[in-house]
């Protein structure tokens, strides 16, 4: 479960002064649900997800992730999340097995439990042939499968995906989305940011349209579609962003 309450983040820039990146956003994401943050580049998606992953501290407001406050109990939060960003990479000089062992240990898994967990992940993530290969020698698709395996190695309750398909071809992207849906089926809480409408339509149960750090619209596909009557998420998105800009 993720409960976000009035979350804000302001960055200080020497030339520009205080620059608000996220302005007072609130939403809830339940177990067994994929919550989509849909927005353009620079809309505030990454900053929001980084705050939920406790990589950044909020300037105001707070959130509870897996029942723990991100400000009060960041270590407890990190123990229960898996975080993947499309920009993040893996260590080229490690093999797949070494990488999963490393992140399993960082997550606090018992060393003796890690090999069995890697075995369990091998089939669903098609890791055969990757475990003893160095990351640097893997294809982009292989790396992305390993990245997701890395995120779930400790079987976290909450998964935070920040544009995980960025840079992938259509096959790689479909593979990633299938894995995300599988996590949802297994009752995990998934928050997923993207700027690709079809992705959001395909996997998100609830979507928040975010622009310039604020949530402009939020709801299920049906409720969002009913809002403008077109049924197309792209239309809803464009209308919402245009409206948001006009309001400013």
């Amino acid at each position, binding site marked *: 479960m993720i409960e976000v309450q009035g979350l804000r983040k302001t960055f*200080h820039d020497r030339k520009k002064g205080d620059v608000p990146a996220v302005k007072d956003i609130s939403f809830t994401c339940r177990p067994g649900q994929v919550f989509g943050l849909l927005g353009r580049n620079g809309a505030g998606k990454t900053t929001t997800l*980084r705050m939920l*992953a*406790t*990589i*950044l*501290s909020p300037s105001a407001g707070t959130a509870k992730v897996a029942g723990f406050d991100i400000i009060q109990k960041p*270590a407890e939060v*990190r*123990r229960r*999340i898996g*975080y993947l*960003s499309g*920009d*993040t*990479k*893996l*260590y*080229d*000089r*490690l093999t797949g097995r*070494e990488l999963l062992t*490393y*992140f399993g*240990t*960082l*997550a*606090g898994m018992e*060393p003796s439990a890690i090999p069995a967990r890697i075995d369990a992940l091998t089939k669903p993530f098609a890791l055969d042939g990757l475990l003893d290969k*160095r990351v640097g020698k893997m294809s982009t698709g292989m790396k992305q499968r390993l990245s997701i395996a*890395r995120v779930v190695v*400790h079987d976290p309750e909450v998964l*935070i995906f920040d544009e995980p398909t960025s840079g992938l071809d259509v096959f790689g992207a479909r593979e990633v989305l299938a894995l995300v849906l599988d996590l949802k089926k297994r009752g995990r809480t998934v928050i997923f940011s993207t700027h690709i409408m079809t992705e959001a339509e395909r996997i998100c149960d609830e979507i928040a349209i975010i622009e310039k750090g604020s949530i402009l619209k939020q709801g299920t596909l049906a409720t969002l579609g009913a809002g403008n009557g077109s049924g197309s998420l792209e239309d809803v998105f464009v209308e919402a962003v245009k409206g948001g800009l006009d309001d400013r």
Partner: protein
Amino acid sequence: MTGRTMAVFRKELIDTLRDGRTIFAIFVFPFLLYPALLMLMGYIQSKNDEEAKAFSVRVGIVGAAQFPAASEKVAAVEGVTVVPFDQEPATYDAADVQALLVLPPDLAGMIARGDSVKVELRYKDADNKSSETAKRLKPAMDEVRQALTLEWAKSRGANATAPPALTVERKDISSKKELGGYIAALLIPYLLIFMVAAGAMQTAIDATTGEKERSTLETILASAATRAELVIGKVMAVLAASLTGAVTGILGLWLSFGVLAAHLTVMKSQALELSVSPEKMLLLFLTLLPAAIFLSAILVAIGCFARSMREGQTYATYVYMASVFLGLSSFTQSESVPLKQFFVPILNTALLQREILTDTVQASHAFAAIGSSSLLAALMIVIAVRLFSNEQVLFRT
């Protein structure tokens, strides 16, 4: 020490050991480059010696007619052509000689009156050929002095035909072992500091700024490991790399000066007996540890602060140069070093190690050096953790 810290340590070590640049710096460099450099030095030196013996030089003698014995002695030196001058040339360079022996005017009168006589051999240290000429003329100059002494004795009524057989000779009676010990005391502390700094640089920047540049930083920041666990794991890996660098560096030197130099003709002149007892080696290692932790932590802190590998390497180079400078400063210290110098980081370690190697350790010096280095190492780790916990530093662009 937590399992997570050890995991970071292991991961960074694996990463380091699979990096060709680090392998080259830590393992290949000391065992190939040092012997190669030593062979080159030996070759150049022997060539220089041969050339120094072979080349012909012109030596001017001003007032040669007053004292023909001077010309005879100088002309007897191999490869020397005497150029007599009645009076001093306007400038040294105008004389077109490699050295100029100046006899004072009225030499005979001065001797007869018992005045002090000063004969000058003018040469240029800045000119290799001139400097070599002066060295070559040294025995001849002794003979000129003896001949002048004889003249003086005769003028005082002595009945002598040859100078008295009185000689004071300088003779270095140091054994190879003693010479090796002296050079070890001077060089090893400096080299250890230099090698620790060099060994730490690459790993520290790779483990910190490298995470930013390769976009792997967020993966560990979002993990359950605390910032302190991550930083300490990284400092430990940097420390391991730096100490390995120091050990392989010393082994490379021992291999070059102690083994290869003794067996290869071209390197014979460099052969030294660099024997340091195991107890002293252990003490050197223990005294090096706080300084190595300090250097590792400072480089990790720099890596956390730097925005890019390039920026990190630039800052790290300053730390490296400062370490080398402080290590070098230990060369110039006299035997009695004031206590306050044992509070200066890096320098204190080099000075204490020199005391260990020369059996002159003072308890106050050891406490000051190890205590202050340990304190600084701890402080630097705290700073590194703070920097690694500061999102404005980690994500600054």
